[in-house]
């Protein structure tokens, strides 16, 4: 297919008759704007409802309609829900890519195609199923103009039959999908059933893949990372949201708008929040900073190009010490790059975003659950440390469907940081905004509108002394910069700690973060099972790095840093932070293709670097 990097290899499910249960990847190749999205969701959900761990990844083009799109559903009994390179079952609906899609399959894979495409002529080492969609659709759907849409639901039925997915679950999924729209639901159900019946009557199942009921999804939910983040921000007490649309971050705010309108309206029918579509990212971050300065819990969401535009303001936030949360749903750069592909390419530039000596706190979620929980962490840290906090998500996490445990109601209370009110000032008489009273590098601030004659201070991006007065004195400048450094050091012990998973007395360490996590966990099992290589694994969840990170590296002979960018950006940050003696232990596994990182790539490269 046009966007993978597969090298043909023998697919697990060859002609050989061994049954492969609940372990397969299905790829649906269509054209975007053709409405296949709901069919794919129905497929995904029905497998999920049968208790089989599943994930769905959409590879879509950066345009609105008419270009190739691929949707991959992975079902895996072991719970591997990262991307799998090999496609076991191809649903070829797009004439434009059908040939290349078919040619790039591993031998033994199955192909379900629209009869006229006659793909079976291409290869003889694949299993082919042909379906006359138009005939079938014509029967179930009298309205010609609806047929294009309904057609997609037919393959759902066919696939259900060939992979033994329970039609009852398909029906349930369809009803959920079309919710109130009963007529549409019935029509689509009919189409699916027609497909099912057709397959039953005309197709002889030859592939080895089966979906069977199990219990690994009970109680779980399916959600994309951006929606999870939206929920998280709502429960984090966010009050001001500003944004400028950009893929893949737009859906975060758009979903948030829906949630907030439903759950954050006061009894008087008025909103307990303000969401503003700004004219661009400079304005969006400017509003976040203005709101944070005035006491709101403010945020914006963007992607690479927006982050770059925010550089100047980012330095202001750091130096004036204003809280604010910025979600970076990373896509492929440089520049406009690949707007609909995933990456971890903004790590280094965001850590040092802006000129002069500037540093920023970054949180890095790997799952929908963390998108939810880290929202509260981010707002709390932003206000406790009076600085901008960047949450580094990515397109794979943000826009794809993930299976997840239901989110836990935040037990951490909302923390507003060191803010002096009228009463405090009555007691203190006055205060010095940038004085390190507590030795943690964090000063006390006041909010505009505090009724005390000494509440006001002068926030400025130019040099200032402890009292926030303008100063060009060398000593004032140096002291303030040193304090900012102390503050950043303090943050080390407040940011989310990394997650450590140990192997059996392993000498090799792996460091990963964000969505690389899913490929890594699966790869670690491959390493153990196929190569008897034991690994310990540390998943970073924040910058600056906590003590545990240094300890982990100290405890391992060499440590592979796995990431989805070209320039080994996180490894670079580690180099800058580590004791020099430890640096030789680091090895880079950095790659970027725009596609979510898969386990096999990690396993192959790591073993070869291990000389295996």
């Amino acid at each position, binding site marked *: 297919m046009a966007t993978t990097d597969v090298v043909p290899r023998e697919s697990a499910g060859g002609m050989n008759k061994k049954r492969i249960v609940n372990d397969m990847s299905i790829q649906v190749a269509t054209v975007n704007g053709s409405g296949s999205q709901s069919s794919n969701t129905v497929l995904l959900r029905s497998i999920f409802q049968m208790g089989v761990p599943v994930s769905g990844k959409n590879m879509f083009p950066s345009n609105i309609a008419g270009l190739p799109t691929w949707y991959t559903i992975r079902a895996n009994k072991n719970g591997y829900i990262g991307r799998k390179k090999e496609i076991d079952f191809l649903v070829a609906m797009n004439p434009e890519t059908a040939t290349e899609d078919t040619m790039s399959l591993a031998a033994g894979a199955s192909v379900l195609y629209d009869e006229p495409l006659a793909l079976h002529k291409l290869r003889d080492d694949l299993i082919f199923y042909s379906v006359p969609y138009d005939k079938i659709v014509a029967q179930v759907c009298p309205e010609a103009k609806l047929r294009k849409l309904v057609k997609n639901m037919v393959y759902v039925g066919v696939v259900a039959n060939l992979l033994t997915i329970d039609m009852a679950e398909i029906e349930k999924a369809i009803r959920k999908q079309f919710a109130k729209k009963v007529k549409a639901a019935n029509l689509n159900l009919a189409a699916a059933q027609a497909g099912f019946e057709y397959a039953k009557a005309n197709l002889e199942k030859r592939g080895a893949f089966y979906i069977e009921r199990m219990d690994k999804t009970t109680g779980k939910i399916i959600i994309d990372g951006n929606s999870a983040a939206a929920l998280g921000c709502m429960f984090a007490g966010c009050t001001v949201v500003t944004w400028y649309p950009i893929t893949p971050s737009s859906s975060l705010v758009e979903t948030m708008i829906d949630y907030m309108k439903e759950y954050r309206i006061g009894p008087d029918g008025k909103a*307990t929040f303000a969401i503003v579509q700004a004219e661009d990212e400079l304005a969006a971050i400017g*509003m976040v900073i203005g709101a944070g300065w*005035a006491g709101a819990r403010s945020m914006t969401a963007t992607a690479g190009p927006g982050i770059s535009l925010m550089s100047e303001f980012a330095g202001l936030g750091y130096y004036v010490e204003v809280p604010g949360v910025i979600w970076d749903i990373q896509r492929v750069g440089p520049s406009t790059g690949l707007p609909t592909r995933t990456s971890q390419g903004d790590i280094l530039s965001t850590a040092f975003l802006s000129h002069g000596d500037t540093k920023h706190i970054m949180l890095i979620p790997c799952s929908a659950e963390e998108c939810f929980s880290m929202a509260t962490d981010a707002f709390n840290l932003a206000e406790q440390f009076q600085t901008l906090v960047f949450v580094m998500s990515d397109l794979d996490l943000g826009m794809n469907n993930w299976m997840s445990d239901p989110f836990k109601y935040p037990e951490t209370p*909302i923390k507003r940081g060191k803010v002096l009110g009228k009463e405090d000032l009555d007691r203190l008489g006055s205060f010095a905004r940038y004085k390190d009273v507590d030795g943690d590098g964090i000063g006390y601030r006041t909010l505009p509108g505090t*009724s005390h004659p000494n509440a006001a201070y002068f926030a400025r991006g130019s040099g200032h002394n402890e009292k926030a007065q303008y100063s060009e004195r060398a000593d004032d400048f140096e002291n303030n910069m040193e304090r900012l450094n102390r503050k950043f050091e303090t943050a080390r012990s407040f940011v989310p700690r990394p997650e450590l998973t140990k192997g059996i007395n392993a000498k090799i360490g792996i460091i990963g973060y964000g969505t690389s996590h899913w490929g890594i966990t699966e790869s670690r099992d491959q390493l153990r099972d196929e190569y008897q290589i034991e690994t310990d694994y540390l998943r970073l969840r924040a910058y600056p790095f906590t003590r545990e990170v240094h300890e982990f590296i100290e405890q391992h002979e060499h440590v592979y840093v796995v990431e989805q960018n070209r320039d080994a950006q996180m490894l670079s940050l580690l180099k800058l932070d580590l004791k020099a003696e430890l640096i030789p232990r680091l090895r880079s596994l950095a790659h970027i293709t725009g596609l979510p990182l898969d386990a096999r790539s990690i396993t192959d490269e790591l073993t070869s670097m291990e000389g295996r």
Partner: protein
Amino acid sequence: MGTTSVEPGTTAPGPKTNRIGLTVIEYKGGKTTLCAGCGHNAISERIIEAMYEMGVEPEFVIKPSGIGCSSKTPAYFLSRSHSFNAVHGRMPSVATGAMLANKKLICIGVSGDGDTASIGIGQFIHLMRRNLPIIYIIEDNGVYGLTKGQFSATADLGSKLKTGVLNDLPPIDTCALAVQLGATLVGRSFSGDKKQLSAMLKAAIAHKGTVMLDVVSPCVTFNDHEGSTKSYKYVKEHEEMLQEVSFVPHFEDINVEYDAGTTVQVTMHDGSRLNLRKLEEDFDPTDKIGAITRLNQAHHDGEVLTGIFYVNPEAPSFIDMLNVVDQPLATLPDSVTRPGKEVLDACMEELR
């Protein structure tokens, strides 16, 4: 923090105080570091007076600004108010964010012609569209003072620098743009005109939407020479007043009768009255299109047109349109900003 730290003014016998019991000193700021004679200093003085006379609580005022000599001035008035000297040309977004966070604040944003019309024109335009509650003041000298006198985008065609360089690009008329884009109280004044500027500033304080005042404010160091169109001399010679502007605050119940033929009386949102004694027969400050036409005419005729160009006291502000709760968002209790567990459960259920 503020450089003065006097206690709230106590009434009698002490010095003269305003309706909330504060003396004028309590509205002052730090010592100016601008050039002696800089128009900006005069504007700071007018702001101090207006705030004092209107009896505004300084603690509820915010003073965002951009970068430039003009943008430094918030340090020279209202020490008891919070200031935010932001980045160059981006004050509008910072001001917007602050007002979103706390709708109870009174926002006076100070900018320069370079800060607004050159680097900042984008944020300026979008601010005007929103009719955000803000008093936006451009201290307009036609040059970048702080970087030593290059032309800004409000410099007039043919205006001359000390070096003899002529400006060959047309000026941006920030007032015409403001009216065109949706600001609801727009005027131009002159740093040297105490009476007019004070009246306009008071009206501005009484207005609930976006106020945009372009105040011509000569730069004595780089743009006050012969050949400059922003010099004290040039403005005095070419000023064309649309009206005689006067203002009666709502808390003063003076009731002078005005002849509708000669005076336009505008009742502001808070009940105050803005009186505009016509100096031009058929100019109507409530007619948007007419205002823009008149402003363009002024350029054509080479006049420095001053006065109130457009006013609409009742247009809904951006904050009105957002329909937010009455308390400031900034200080809402957690109980309000974090929905209960049942809400989360409901959301989870939907996703099963």
